């Protein structure tokens, strides 16, 4: 119970600091450019911290360690890809995107290709990606709060939604910049400090019943363990025969008492309880390595594993530059050079962070193999401190981790809500500050509704899907739009529809297959390897076929995108459309004076 109090107070502290910083940041926010792009006055290093804070979501904070626990060394491709994506963004997108002077991704598309139709398509995909990314954040928030405190799962998601929406209502982008920058450093501390402490504990007591790292055989339980299968049906693979006690349903038949499992796959119904003795082999959730040898060696899953790895590299390398909530942060830099420096600084901040989840993943493999049975590996980071240090120290370390995880949900969700609300308010509504606030509330409601309705899956996997979607839609649009004169709006729309449509149908197929026996091949569950080139080719071919529609002013536009900042070609589209802060103040002043006169 003590542990719960520690963790809860840490979480409340994070929430309080979030509110405070949001309040400080939003005191002077009153115009649309304030809410959309924070008046484009964020210095490069602070913006980089804010981007990293926003980007290190639940998938990074909890998911990476969980995937290392489950899949071993091959899971390290996730952090590599998540970081390398910023390199691609720096190389191809950062500076020209900022110089376009746009304020949202659809606005950039319209500025470049001059088509309102294209703008609407982009709006649709921005909302899709935003929601696809937001839902797992809220669901993981529920999981985290349940793991820590035992509160019901819907409560965590609701708390995060309310905090984020209230903060964003106050000041939009201005409110969340400081919050996200602070939360990056908070998260770095919350993962680095526990890693150091737990690693020292590990060095001080290397055996404590755990399996030696050099053992090549099947993964075994360090001590006797009792496991209850939660909401969903789980399939586990057994590689070495074992004896255990069960009560519940196995393979759809009732089972009670002591049973003997030979090699094979078993299906466990929700509510089934399993009791293992110390040293018995761990049945591992289907699709993950069952032996220490396969876990610690790369590429042991055969050719389909290889394809999945390549697809993952593709999706993350090219997908980051298509994520609307990341791009919108680059619009807040003062100029193109600052945008480039921001991207470079992000590479440094992310590299610093991603070393720690890997270490935690390896440690949790030694101490928490029971998570492999029901596949709930996202909880590993949260459970590890108290498992390794069952005393006050462990409780405090656990509280720090919990606070970090909570910060991860808050910062990522606020970035997503701002970017979706910005697009909805400027493209579907007239784009006044009031519209932005309504759009924020609306986005929050839709997201929490979906989070409660949809079934949960691993945070990293859903996030990987939204990367694939971004890589197959906005990545070709941005890269071709910035570097190729021949792009037309017809080509862009066709590319978006084909790329996005392929990814969405692949997602649908893989959901069906996950319910009916996992028959989908790797290129459907990780479709980027095929869909990204297809989207590029469609855009190029259709643009060539509709060459008449190349905008007449394409030279001027490319000049704006690429001319160095000192030449002064940047023009701010948000000010062109919504007016400057000074103008706004003058108008309000006139109104007041006008009202005085009539009185």
């Amino acid at each position, binding site marked *: 119970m003590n542990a719960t109090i520690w963790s809860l107070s840490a979480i409340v502290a994070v929430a309080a600091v979030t509110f405070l910083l949001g309040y400080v940041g939003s005191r002077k926010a009153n115009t649309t450019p304030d809410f959309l792009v924070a008046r484009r006055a964020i210095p490069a290093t602070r913006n980089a911290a804010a981007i990293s804070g926003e980007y290190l979501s639940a998938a990074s904070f909890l998911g990476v360690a969980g995937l290392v626990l489950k899949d071993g*060394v091959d899971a*390290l*491709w996730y952090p*590599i890809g998540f*970081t*390398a994506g*910023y*390199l*691609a963004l*720096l*190389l191809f997108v950062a500076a020209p995107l900022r110089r376009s*002077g746009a304020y949202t991704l659809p606005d950039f598309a*319209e*500025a470049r290709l001059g088509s*309102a139709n294209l*703008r609407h398509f982009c709006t649709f995909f921005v909302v899709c990606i935003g929601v696809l990314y937001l839902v797992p954040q809220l669901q993981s928030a529920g999981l985290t709060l349940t793991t820590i405190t035992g509160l019901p799962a819907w409560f965590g998601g609701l708390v995060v939604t309310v905090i984020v929406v209230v903060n964003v209502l106050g000041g939009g982008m201005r409110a969340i910049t400081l919050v996200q920058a602070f939360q990056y450093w908070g998260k770095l501390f919350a993962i680095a400090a526990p890693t150091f402490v737990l690693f020292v504990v590990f060095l001080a007591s290397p055996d404590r019943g755990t399996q030696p790292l050099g053992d090549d055989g099947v993964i075994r339980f360090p001590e006797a363990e009792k496991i209850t299968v939660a909401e969903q049906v789980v399939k586990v693979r057994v590689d070495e025969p074992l004896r255990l006690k069960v009560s519940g349903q196995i393979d759809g038949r009732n089972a009670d008492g002591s049973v003997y499992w030979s090699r094979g796959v078993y299906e466990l119904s929700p509510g089934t309880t399993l009791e293992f003795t110390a040293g018995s082999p761990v049945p591992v959730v289907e699709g993950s390595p069952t032996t220490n040898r396969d876990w*610690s*060696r*790369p*590429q042991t899953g055969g050719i389909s594993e*290889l394809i999945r*790895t*390549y697809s993952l*590299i593709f999706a993350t*390398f090219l997908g980051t530059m298509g994520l609307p909530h990341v791009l919108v942060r680059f619009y807040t830099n003062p100029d193109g*050079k600052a945008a*480039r*420096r921001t*991207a*470079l600084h992000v*590479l*440094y901040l*992310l*590299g*610093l962070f991603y*070393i720690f989840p*890997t270490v935690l993943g390896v440690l949790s493999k030694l101490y928490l193999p029971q998570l492999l049975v029901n596949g709930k590996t996202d909880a590993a980071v949260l459970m590890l401190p108290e498992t390794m240090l069952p005393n006050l120290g462990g409780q405090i370390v656990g509280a720090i981790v919990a606070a970090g995880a909570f910060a991860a949900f808050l910062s990522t969700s606020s970035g997503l809500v701002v970017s979706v609300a910005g697009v909805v308010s*400027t493209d*579907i*509504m*007239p*784009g006044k500050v009031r519209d932005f606030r309504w759009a924020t509330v609306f986005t929050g409601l839709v997201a929490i509704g979906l989070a409660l309705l949809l079934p949960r899956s691993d945070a990293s996997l859903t996030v990987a899907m939204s990367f694939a979607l971004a890589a197959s839609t906005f990545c070709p649009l941005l890269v071709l739009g910035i*570097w190729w004169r021949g792009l037309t709006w017809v080509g862009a729309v066709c590319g978006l529809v084909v790329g996005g449509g392929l990814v969405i149908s692949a997602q649908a197929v893989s959901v069906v297959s996950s319910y009916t026996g996992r028959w989908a091949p790797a290129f459907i569950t990780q479709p980027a390897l095929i869909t990204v080139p297809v989207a590029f080719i469609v855009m190029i071919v259709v643009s060539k076929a509709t060459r008449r529609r190349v905008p007449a*002013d394409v*030279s*001027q*536009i*490319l*000049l*704006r995108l*690429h*001319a*160095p*900042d*000192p*030449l002064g*070609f940047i*023009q701010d589209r948000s000010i*062109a*459309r919504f007016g400057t802060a000074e103008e706004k103040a003058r108008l309000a002043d006139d109104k007041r004076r006008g009202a005085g006169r009539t009185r």
Partner: protein
Amino acid sequence: MSRHDAGKPEPPAREAWLGEQGGRPRRRRVVLADSTKKSGKALRTIIELEEQTSVGEKLVRDLIRQQLKSAFGLAFAVLIGMCLLPITFYLVPSIGDLTILGIPIPWLVLGLAPFPILYGVGWVFRRQAERHERDFVNMVDR
């Protein structure tokens, strides 16, 4: 006019963003005799850029080509490097048995090494890109 129409930026907004030259046919510069004086040259080049005469367009095309060459070269190198790793691990599984200080090499190669390399590549690109831009600015207001 419905509510939704109000959301679209009007065509004049686009022209304002592009400057006055947006819609007009492009002006071509015809040089009969080079009578430019030193003082007027900086301004003139900027005007040529703004109006995207044939000279101005050539300058921008060259800049874009330079930047794209840097970006493509580095991206290609990184992507090839990353893509070679899984196939190497797949074809030569014995790499997994080698260790440095008790840590298997694949864990070091995937868990630690990529981050400094990615930052280094980014740093090189930033330097190159900023140099290209400096050269461009120097050329324009020479």
